C-alpha cells in the first residue's frame, strides 16, 4: 500500500517542475537525456511496483521493456499498424507476457524469484537475438513516432517528444499509485509481509502476484515502446539482463518501495552517467563508488534518506496543524 506524504508530494512537484522547465529550455542533447530519464522513470516505476510493494524483485523488466519495444516496432514496421494502435498492442502484449511470467514464478521467493525472472528474460533475449524477422543482432530500424498532427503536435521534434514522454510518465505514475492503493495493492502488501497467512485468509496468492506483475509489465511495455520511438531503432541489447540490473540499481538507489524515490534515482543516475562519461571512459568506476557510498549511508536510497531525515517531522508538523478536522490515521508506508 502506498501513501502520499507531504514530502512525497513536495518532491514530486519539484521533479515535475524541473522536468517541465528542462523540456522547455534544454538544448538538443539535454532533451535527449531528459527523454532517457523519463523512459527509465517509467521502467523503474514498474519495477518498484513489484519489487518495492510486493517483494518480487524482478530481473526481467529490461526484457519486458525490450519486448514492448519490439512489439511496437514489429507492429509498426512489419504489420503496418499505425503507431497509436501499435502502442496499445505493445502494452497489452507485454502485460500478457508479464502476467504469465508472474503466474509461473509466483511460487518462488527471494533470490529464486530473481533467478526465475532472469531465466525468462534471458529466454526472451536469446529468442529476439536469434530471430531473423526481428533483425537479430543488427536490430530493427525505421520505427515511426506517433502522428499527433491532429492535435497540432509534431513528435519528430525533440521538444514535443519529450513533453509526450513527460505526459506518459505522469500517467504511468498515476496508474501505479491507483493500483497500489486499490484492494489489489492492499492484498499485495499483505502477501509481501506474510504470504502464508494471506493464503489462509482465503486469498489466491498467485493471482494477486500475477495481476500486479502483469500491470507492472504493461508499464514496462509502455517504456519500451517509448524507447523504440525515441531511438527509432531497436536492438536486442535492450532485453539484456544488464538493463534489468541497471533498473534495479536505480530503484534501490532512489529508494525501494517509495515510488517517488525511483524517479529521483532515474534522474540522478542518468544525469550522473552522462556527466561522467563525457569526462572519463572509466565512469563505471565513479558510478560504482557513488553507489557504494549511498548504500553504506544505510538509508533506503536517496529518497529514503530524505524521508528518514525530514519525512516524519514534516508530517507531524502538518498533522499538528490539521489535527482538528481530520481523524488520526496510522501512518506507515508500503
Amino acid at each position, binding site marked *: 500500500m502506498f501513501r502520499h506524504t507531504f514530502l512525497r508530494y513536495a518532491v514530486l512537484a519539484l521533479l515535475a517542475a524541473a522536468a517541465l522547465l528542462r523540456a522547455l529550455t534544454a538544448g538538443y542533447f539535454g532533451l*535527449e537525456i531528459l527523454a532517457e530519464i523519463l523512459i527509465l522513470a517509467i521502467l523503474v516505476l514498474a519495477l518498484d511496483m513489484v519489487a518495492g510493494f510486493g517483494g518480487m524483485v524482478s530481473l526481467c523488466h529490461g526484457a519486458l521493456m525490450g519486448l514492448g519495444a519490439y512489439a511496437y516496432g514489429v507492429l509498426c514496421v512489419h504489420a503496418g499498424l499505425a503507431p497509436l494502435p501499435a502502442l496499445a498492442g505493445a502494452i497489452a502484449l507485454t502485460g500478457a507476457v508479464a502476467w504469465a511470467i508472474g503466474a509461473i514464478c509466483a511460487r518462488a521467493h527471494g533470490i529464486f524469484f530473481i533467478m526465475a525472472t532472469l531465466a525468462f528474460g534471458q529466454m526472451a533475449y536469446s529468442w529476439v537475438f536469434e530471430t531473423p524477422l526481428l533483425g537479430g*543482432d*543488427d*536490430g530493427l*530500424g525505421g520505427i515511426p513516432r506517433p502522428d499527433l498532427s491532429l492535435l497540432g503536435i509534431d513528435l519528430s521534434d525533440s521538444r514535443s517528444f519529450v513533453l509526450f514522454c513527460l505526459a506518459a510518465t505522469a500517467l504511468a505514475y498515476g496508474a501505479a499509485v491507483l493500483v497500489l492503493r486499490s484492494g489489489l495493492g492492499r492484498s499485495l502488501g499483505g502477501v509481501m509481509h506474510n504470504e502464508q497467512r494471506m493464503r489462509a485468509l482465503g486469498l489466491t496468492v498467485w493471482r494477486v502476484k500475477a495481476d500486479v506483475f502483469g500491470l507492472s509489465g504493461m508499464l514496462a511495455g509502455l517504456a519500451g515502446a517509448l524507447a523504440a520511438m525515441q531511438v527509432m531503432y531497436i536492438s536486442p*541489447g535492450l532485453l539484456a539482463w544488464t538493463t534489468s540490473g541497471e533498473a534495479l540499481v536505480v530503484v534501490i538507489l532512489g529508494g525501494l518501495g517509495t515510488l517517488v524515490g525511483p524517479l529521483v534515482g532515474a534522474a540522478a543516475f542518468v544525469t550522473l552517467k552522462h556527466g561522467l562519461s563525457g569526462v572519463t*571512459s*572509466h*565512469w563505471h568506476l565513479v558510478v560504482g563508488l557513488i553507489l557504494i557510498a549511498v548504500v553504506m549511508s544505510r538509508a533506503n536510497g536517496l529518497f529514503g534518506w530524505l524521508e528518514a531525515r525530514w519525512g516524519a517531522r514534516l508530517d507531524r508538523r502538518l498533522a499538528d496543524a490539521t489535527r482538528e478536522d481530520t481523524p488520526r490515521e496510522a501512518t506507515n508506508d508500503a
Partner: protein
Amino acid sequence: EDPVRVGLLLPFSGVYAALGNDIEAGFDLGLETFAPDSGFEVIREDTEVKPPVALAKTRKLILQDKVDVIAGVVSSGVLGAVRDAVHGAGVPLIVANAGNDDATGSACSPWITRMSFSNGQVNRPMGQWLHDQGITRVFTLAPDYAGGRQMIGGFVEGFTAAGGEIAGQEFTPFQKTQDFGPYLAKAKASGAQAVYVFYAGSEAISFVKQYDSFGMKAELPLYGSGFLTSPLYVNAEGPAAAGVVTALHYVPTIDTEENRAFVTAFEARTGRLPSEYAVQGYDSARALVEAAATGARGRAGLGEALRQVQFTGPRGQTSIDPATNNIVQPIYVYETVQGDDGMTQKILAELPARPDAANGCEMAPVAN
C-alpha cells in the same frame, strides 16, 4: 579557415574498448602524419557498444556539435542504429570497423563510406585459396550472430564455388560459450579435412587455446578469418596459435615501404604492434585528410570527396567502390608462427583486391 569538425564515435568502455582504443590510436596517428598542421577538430564520444547510446551520441554530434563528418563505429549493431540518422541528416560517416555486409549492400548510403572491410570480403577469397591447397571437406564454426553468419557465409560461398564441400556447420551462442570442447568433438567426428572458423576477441583466445589443448591441429588443421589470430590477441594465445592459417586485410608483417613506416610510427607511439583495427583508424584519418585536401568542405562536399579517395597505404592499394562505397583492398593469407619475441605472422599469399557484389545497393549521388 575553420577547422573540419570530426566526430569520433568509438567504444571506449564495454567489451570492445580494446578495439576502440586501437582505432583511436591509429586515427590520431593518421591525422598527425597526413595533416601535421592540423585543420581538424576531433570530438570523441563513447558508444559503450550500446546502440541506443551510440545513436544519442550521434544525434548530439550532428545536431549540437554540428560536425562535418563522423568516423568510427566498431559494432554492426551500432552501425545499424546510426545508419538512418547519418543518412537522413546528410552527414558523411567513415566506418572504421563494423563489417556488416548490408551496410554496403541493401542498406547502403552515399553518406556512408567504409574504410575497414566487409564480412564477406575478408572470407570469400579464402574459400578458393583453401580449395587450391587441396582441401575439399571443411567443418565451420562461428558465433551465432549476424556477423558470424556473414563471415562464414562469405567463406562457404567461395569454397563451394571452388568445388569444396561443407562437412558440417555449427554456430555457438554468442559470447556465452565458455567451453568449445563439445563443438570440437563434433568437428572431429564430422570427417572433415580442416576446420574453418570465425571468432574474435575473448572467444578467439579461448577457442584457439582449447583447440590446441585437444591436440587437433595436427590431424585437423585450423583455418579461419584473420581476426582469430589478430595481433591484438595473438600473444594471449601464445604457442597455441602456431600453425593456424587465416586471412585478413592487414597484418603488421606486410613487407612494403608504407607499412614499415606505419608500424614503426605506431610502435613508437603505443609500444605495441598495430592491429588491423589500428590500420583502419589510420586509413580512415588518411581518407579524411585526402578528401579535405581536394578543397572539399562541408558535409556534402566531404561526402562526395570521400568516395573518390584512393591511395596506397600500409595494406596496399586501397580504393572505394563507387557502386557500394565499400573499400576495395587485397586480402592476405598468413600463418601464425613463433617469432623471436612472441608470435608473428608469415604471409603465405596476397589475394588480389576485388570489389564485393552490390548486394542490392543502389547508390544515389550525394545530394544536398
